[in-house]
């Protein structure tokens, strides 16, 4: 309802729907690559059932000539690989939408383009034939796409490639003859330079590699698994050891063992797996062992909706683990931030010798975007541990210091002995029940939070000062909030946004004035209870005027926000 389209600056939504196993992710990814190669911007939303075959899944690509950073909701082009797809998405079709269907279904109705798939190839390549039709309708360059197919299938084996190229060609040809009903994409700017097609989880994986991570352990759990799979694919090249653990408890304890022995380490999981890790999170806090914990959220409680999205674990990650210690929680709002903040988490984990968290969710995890290649120029790896030569006298792992950070020697790399303990301990790491030592150690560990706070990553404020409305958010809904604000501004309101990517610690003095200068402050988040709104109130005393919440398993979109604000405002 809020989208504007004209032929010069295109912004449209392309949805491929079908069953798991029909290869819709394959063509979705191909299409993304093709679009990005031709200079378009994309935002992908993947929505799938928790099953391997069947069900109803979609791969949605918002494609635009200008930068976009959020998902759209009105479908312009729907590729239906099953009949069910048509009915499921009819309500979301834009006025001038087109729906690609199989002629064999003999559907009648508006907006349909019946494709004779049976004539274009075998059933297993229908997806690629549909890709051909699509490519033609969108006006994409045939040669480039064939090269892409070659790159994708060529490596496996030639026969497969041949079959696919054929189906693609037939689809393309057929559309050229029959499918003129769709206006091709306006040309995208050609000066964008090379861009990657990358989703949030891949960027987290690369961020870890860029930080010099050397150890990862995990137990598979959607939507975190693909972070590990990406790391594993590059583990030998980048010199990492990655181990699938027997459970999440083992995963984090292993990572702590590795980190203690000097390897920058991470684990990645989702809420239920994180629950099992909380005891070891506390252990990391007590033993002052650096570790990066990635939590990719999905809707809970319990198993919930394993393949959908939510921002429901903020408070749990904030407080997971018994006892009190310093932690950092970062929540990237874009694919670029997934890379940057994961790197940052490694550095701060090492600097403060305490667990640092990256909180993402299924939406961002699976959302492909066009991203300028990360530069490796000037990147440095985390340098684990302290230099043994800096130690004079007997080494004390937990020496009391002004900032709470003690020299961290690594076991076996010098003749000093390194003693880490989960009990309360003296400065040399041995069990103590001396209660004044206890109190001092508590203060030492908590002092680290002050340092982390000093390196605060301030939220991003965008828009006029003293706006009528301030939209506050955290993590993955950043793009949707910013776009919603633009829509609202176009509708005449003065609206600003405040997007948090560091959700803990927060710096009251620097947040409160920003909240207070706005007319109405609205917190937008993907959960049912407004967890971040509560956190802000806890830290600043400021009560949000309103919240826009979503908890049905889908990502927050600009439309969703604008609709809610207009409905209740």
């Amino acid at each position: 309802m809020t989208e504007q389209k004209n032929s010069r600056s295109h912004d449209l939504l392309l949805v491929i729907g079908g069953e798991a196993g029909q290869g819709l992710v394959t063509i979705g990814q191909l299409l993304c690559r093709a679009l990005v190669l031709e200079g378009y911007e994309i935002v992908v939303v993947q929505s799938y059932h928790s099953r391997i075959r069947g069900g109803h899944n979609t791969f949605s690509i918002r494609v635009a000539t200008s930068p976009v950073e959020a998902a759209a909701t009105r479908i312009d082009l729907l590729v239906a690989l099953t009949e069910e797809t048509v009915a499921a998405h009819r309500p979301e079709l834009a006025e001038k939408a087109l729906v690609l269907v199989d002629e064999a279904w003999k559907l009648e109705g508006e907006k349909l383009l019946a494709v004779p798939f049976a004539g274009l190839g075998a059933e297993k390549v229908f997806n690629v034939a549909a890709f051909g039709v699509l490519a033609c309708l969108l006006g994409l360059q045939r040669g480039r796409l064939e090269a892409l197919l070659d790159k994708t299938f060529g490596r496996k084996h030639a026969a497969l490639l041949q079959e696919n190229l054929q189906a693609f060609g037939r689809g393309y040809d057929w559309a050229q003859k029959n499918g003129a009903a769709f206006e091709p994409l306006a040309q995208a700017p050609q000066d964008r330079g090379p861009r990657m097609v990358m989703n949030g989880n891949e960027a987290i994986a690369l961020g870890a590699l860029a930080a010099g991570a050397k150890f990862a352990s995990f137990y598979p759990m959607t939507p975190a698994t693909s972070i590990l799979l990406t790391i594993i694919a590059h583990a030998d090249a980048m010199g990492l050891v990655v181990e699938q653990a027997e459970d999440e408890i083992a995963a984090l304890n292993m990572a702590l063992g590795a980190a203690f022995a000097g390897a920058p380490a991470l684990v990645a999981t989702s809420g239920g797996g994180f629950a099992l890790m909380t005891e070891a999170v506390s252990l990391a806090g007590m033993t002052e062992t650096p570790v990066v914990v990635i939590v990719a959220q999905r809707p809970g409680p319990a198993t919930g909706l394993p393949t959908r999205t939510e921002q429901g674990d903020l408070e749990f990650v904030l407080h997971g683990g018994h006892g009190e210690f310093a932690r950092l929680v970062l929540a990237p709002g874009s694919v670029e931030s997934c890379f940057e903040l994961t790197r940052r988490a490694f550095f701060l984990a090492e600097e403060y010798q305490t667990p640092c968290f990256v909180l993402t969710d299924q939406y961002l995890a699976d959302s492909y975007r066009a991203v300028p290649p990360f530069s490796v120029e000037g990147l440095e790896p985390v340098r684990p541990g302290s230099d043994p030569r800096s130690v004079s006298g007997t080494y004390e792992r937990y020496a009391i210091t002004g900032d709470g950070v003690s020299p961290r020697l690594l076991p076996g790399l010098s003749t000093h002995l390194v003693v880490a303990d989960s009990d309360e301990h003296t400065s040399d790491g041995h069990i103590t029940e001396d209660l004044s030592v206890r109190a001092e150690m508590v203060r030492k560990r908590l002092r680290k939070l002050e340092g982390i706070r000093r390196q605060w990553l301030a939220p991003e404020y965008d828009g006029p000062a003293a706006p009528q409305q301030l939209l506050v958010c955290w993590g993955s809904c950043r793009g949707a909030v910013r776009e919603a604000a633009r829509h609202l501004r176009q509708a005449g309101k003065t609206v600003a946004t405040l997007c948090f990517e560091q959700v803990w610690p927060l710096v009251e003095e620097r947040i409160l004035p920003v909240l207070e200068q706005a007319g109405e402050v609205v917190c937008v988040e993907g959960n049912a209870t407004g967890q971040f709104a509560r956190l802000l109130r806890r830290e600043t005393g400021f009560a949000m005027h309103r919240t826009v919440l979503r908890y049905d398993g889908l990502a927050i979109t600009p439309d969703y926000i604008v609709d809610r604000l207009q409905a209740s405002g």
Partner: protein
Amino acid sequence: MVDSRDYGEFETAWCPGCGNFGLLRALKRALAACGLEPHQILLVSGIGQAAKAPHYLRANVFNGLHGRSLPVATGAKLANPGLTVIAESGDGCMYGEGGNHFLAALRRNLDITILVHDNQVYGLTKGQASPTSAAGFVTKAQPRGVFANPFNPLAVAVAMGCGFVGRGYVGRQDELIELIARAIRYRGTALVDIQQPCVSFNHLNTYDWYNARCQPLADDYDAGNFDLALRTALESGFRLPVGVLYEKEGQAVFEDNFAVLKEKTPLCQRPTDYRQLAAIIESYT
């Protein structure tokens, strides 16, 4: 030459007469016999009376959570395969809370040593039944006696193909020192289950009880015979023979499978190859 005195003498929090003393003593001697300097050793323990042991000798130590010594040991060994890693904890810690890690460790077969202080009771929490407590063992938490069957770690380890399985007893120091030393030297995961009295909470499995049962294996016992090992491990009742029940050399060692660990360089000393990373990034365009 390393001497067992190099590991120091420390005050302990154990009860007088506790079997842990004998174990600690034997461990130090075994370490010395292996010629290991304190800084070459990493002792990883969980929580319990047994798990305090690493605090009482000079070595690198990670004293973690109850039940979780093995995953920590695994991570540390993978990060620095040059370390001599010994996971040491009680029966409750290793076979109770940590049972799943025990299974996983046996499946992996890293070059680590597992020392279990098996007093058949939860000592630190004041005497509840442990997985190895005998059926019928009476405690305040099990006033009608234990209902479950005891866990037989040695039989399970042999059945799972663990390449070094031994039983020790703190009352047989010479054999214990020798056993621990062999376990440390063994390339692969070595399990040593060590019988030790808890004088405060286990009034069934006393020194006398063990003395009567813990005899060395026969001189002609063939530790290379799998069936014999399994039978011997399954034996219960009056005989609890001590020594190496099973030993098989040449099993594939887990860490050797990682290309990255081929040269045993500690992971923290490996460079981060940013040209490789650039190529990976490039592959996404």
